């Protein structure tokens, strides 16, 4: 990709606006990857456009939740935003489950469940073939485990896929946003949040998002104030 090389040169020489432009053109060509989004995030960070930087780091982490550099840079960027939120951590089993299904990208999980299913089927072939008794005896436990793993990983792959495909996160792009109690301008303003904050999207009605903050606050805000990740 010629764009990638010239973007790297521009970034290294300090022309971050140009680098961002080139990387975005790669994305416009219909390509994506966690590393591409991470690089775009870096370009925005260097131009001190923190909200955009956070948005792209979140996109990178969505594609590859175990991306170490993106986690580090996101943490630095989040130290520069206005809102400080005391996160209420979810129940331990949810955290564990999330850490499991985000440990690998969804495609890897999908391939794994297929592989285990194929192993199970091979085991069954052996079991029902008129061949050596020793092989058949080994085939029984292997195919039982393969079947269990295949079912478990199917569930994980499904969660992982839903996590990546559903746009359940949003980054606030407006300097100050009033969060209201109902999805309309008449709703009582509950609190304000600021540029760069990451929120969970829990619902969408008529151009209004219902959002939930990490500390448990819930409210509605207009569609154009955030970018879905």
């Amino acid at each position: 990709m010629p764009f990638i090389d010239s973007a790297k040169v521009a970034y290294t020489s300090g022309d971050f606006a140009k680098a961002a432009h080139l990387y975005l053109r790669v994305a416009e060509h219909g390509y994506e990857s966690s590393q591409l989004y991470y690089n775009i995030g870096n370009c925005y960070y260097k131009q001190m456009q923190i909200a955009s930087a956070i948005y792209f780091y979140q996109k990178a982490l969505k594609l590859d939740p175990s991306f170490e550099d993106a986690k580090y840079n996101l943490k630095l960027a989040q130290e520069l935003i206005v809102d400080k939120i005391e996160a209420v951590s979810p129940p331990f089993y949810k955290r564990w489950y999330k850490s499991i299904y985000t440990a690998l990208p969804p495609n890897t999980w999908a391939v794994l469940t297929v592989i285990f299913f194929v192993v199970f089927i091979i085991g069954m072939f052996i079991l029902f073939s008129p061949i050596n008794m020793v092989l058949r005896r080994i085939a029984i436990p292997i195919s039982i485990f393969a079947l269990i793993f295949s079912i478990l990983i199917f569930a994980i792959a499904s969660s992982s896929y839903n996590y990546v495909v559903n746009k359940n996160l949003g980054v606030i792009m407006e300097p100050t946003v009033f969060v209201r109690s109902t999805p309309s301008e008449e709703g009582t303003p509950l609190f304000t949040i600021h540029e760069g904050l990451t929120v969970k999207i829990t619902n969408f009605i008529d151009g209004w998002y219902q959002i939930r903050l990490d500390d448990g606050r819930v409210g509605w805000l207009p569609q154009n104030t955030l970018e879905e990740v």
Partner: protein
Amino acid sequence: MLMKSLYNLIFGSLLLSTLSLMGQNLTIEGKAPRVVEVGERFQLIYVINEKTDAPQIDIPESLRVIYGPSVSQSTSMQIINGQVSSSFTLTYTYLLVAEKEGIYDIQPASVNYKGKTYTSNAVNIEVVKGSSSVTQNPQAQQQQNQPSARTKPVNGEGDFFVRVLVDKTSVYQGEALVATLKLYTTLELNSFEKVELPKFVGFFKEEIETTTQIQLQRENVNGRIYQTGVIAKYLLFPQRSGTIEIDPMNVEVIVTERTRPIDPFEAFFGGNVRRYKVGNKSPVVTINVKPLPEPKPTDFTGGVGLLRLDASVSKNQLNVNDAINFKIRYSGNGNIKFLDNPTIKFPKEFEVYDPKKDVNVKITQNGATGVILWDYLLIPRAPGKFSIPEIVISYFDLDSKTYKKLSSGPFEVVVEGTAADASGYSSKQSGFYRQNIEDISTDIRFIQTGNLDLHAKGNYFFGTPMFWTLYLLPLVSFVIFWLLRIKQIMDQSDMVKLRTRRASQMSRKRLKAAEKYVKDNKDAQVYDEVLRALWQYLADKLIIEQSRLTRDEILQQLKNRNIDEALIEKVIEVADQCEMARYAPTAMKKPASEVYQQAVDLLVQLEKALK
């Protein structure tokens, strides 16, 4: 400072008349009042620091020389810290009278001294129409002017006033302006009663050095000649933008006035001298301070004017624990005194001592000019190649009205020696000069390089037809395999049933045939039939292919099926008897009927055993 100059104004300077020491260059200086009235007498003075003849001067016709030159000379001597310095002055004074209005240039006067010609400065004189107040003397004027001087109330309104004069009323924040505190008078000053100077709130102020003595100069203000004196001069640097007012200056003085003697006795003593107080308050001066244009560069130091930056290291190569000097020098014209200190990130391995700051700034009419020098002493405590980063500052350039960037460096310093040398420095305390890694600053990590693992957007495998196909394909193929396998097993078990059933039928048939031969006494056929019945039966029962049908194979299969040894013995016995009878009929002792009966019993037993 101020009071001293006031003092000198009143009492004049002290002169020492002593003989002079000679030997400098010759200077010649011409002096005259700047403004005179028509008909007024005034002095034109040439001051020379060597003994010479009168200078040659060229005086315009409209300025008539009434008298002169008169010569006077003086020598002054100063002793400062035991150093004697002296000066000699020779003064030629001409008394002139102006006859016509206009501006006149008196060309430089020249004087010959030891074969060389020296020239003075040109003198410029403005002649204005005569007015009322200054009555220096000509008789004609005296008669005209005196009545008007009488009628005018001497309250200081027009005869005495003070002003704060600024050279600019619109400046940028940080740009210097000159404020001159000046008094104007037509009266004879006796002493200062009260002097309240402006506070200059909103400015940094620097006093401009003026002569210690306030010199009164004549000046034309709206056609009237005033004696003017500069009380003080300041260089002002606005600290904030917006409109800043300079509050008024308030001065009160005692003046003396000679009244016209009324009684002759008084006149004899030189007339009556009246003293009274006059005061004036200067008007408020408004300065419009423009803010510096946005956006300001991040490395902006607050400097406004014209700056230069120089930095240097004393050595580029040195040994561990040796000292080097690092100097940063700001020079130029502007608010140089109020610049922020430079912040330099020296390498961690350098021990840095507080810098020595050397300020050498001259405050003049043209602004503050000079040099600020920071001198850092650095001692590297570890060997290696180090770099003192580039020093970058920005300032606002007043000529181009833009920010300009100055930079110097970076400076490479090679420190030689080994870590052991470095440890030697602190060996007495800890043995090793070691330190923790400290963050100089934090920044985001670098971008990912390479091909970035790009793939088409939204390409997910889970839930696609391909995904389900990969599940279904092995499953379906297994089901097909399984069905085929079931059918095969079914077929096999059918064959077994068939053959076993056939086994009984066939053997029964053969035994019936044998029975018939027994009755007919055809012994040979009996043995043959019995033997074939037995083998056929066992082959079908044990499902042995016709090709592998041998006596050993059958016996082996029987043993595999855990058939009773005795029964196997019987099988062998019957088979042996039959074979023996077939190939050696004479050796046969038992009758055929008995063998037949034995075979029937055996088959019944085998049928039970092989169920």
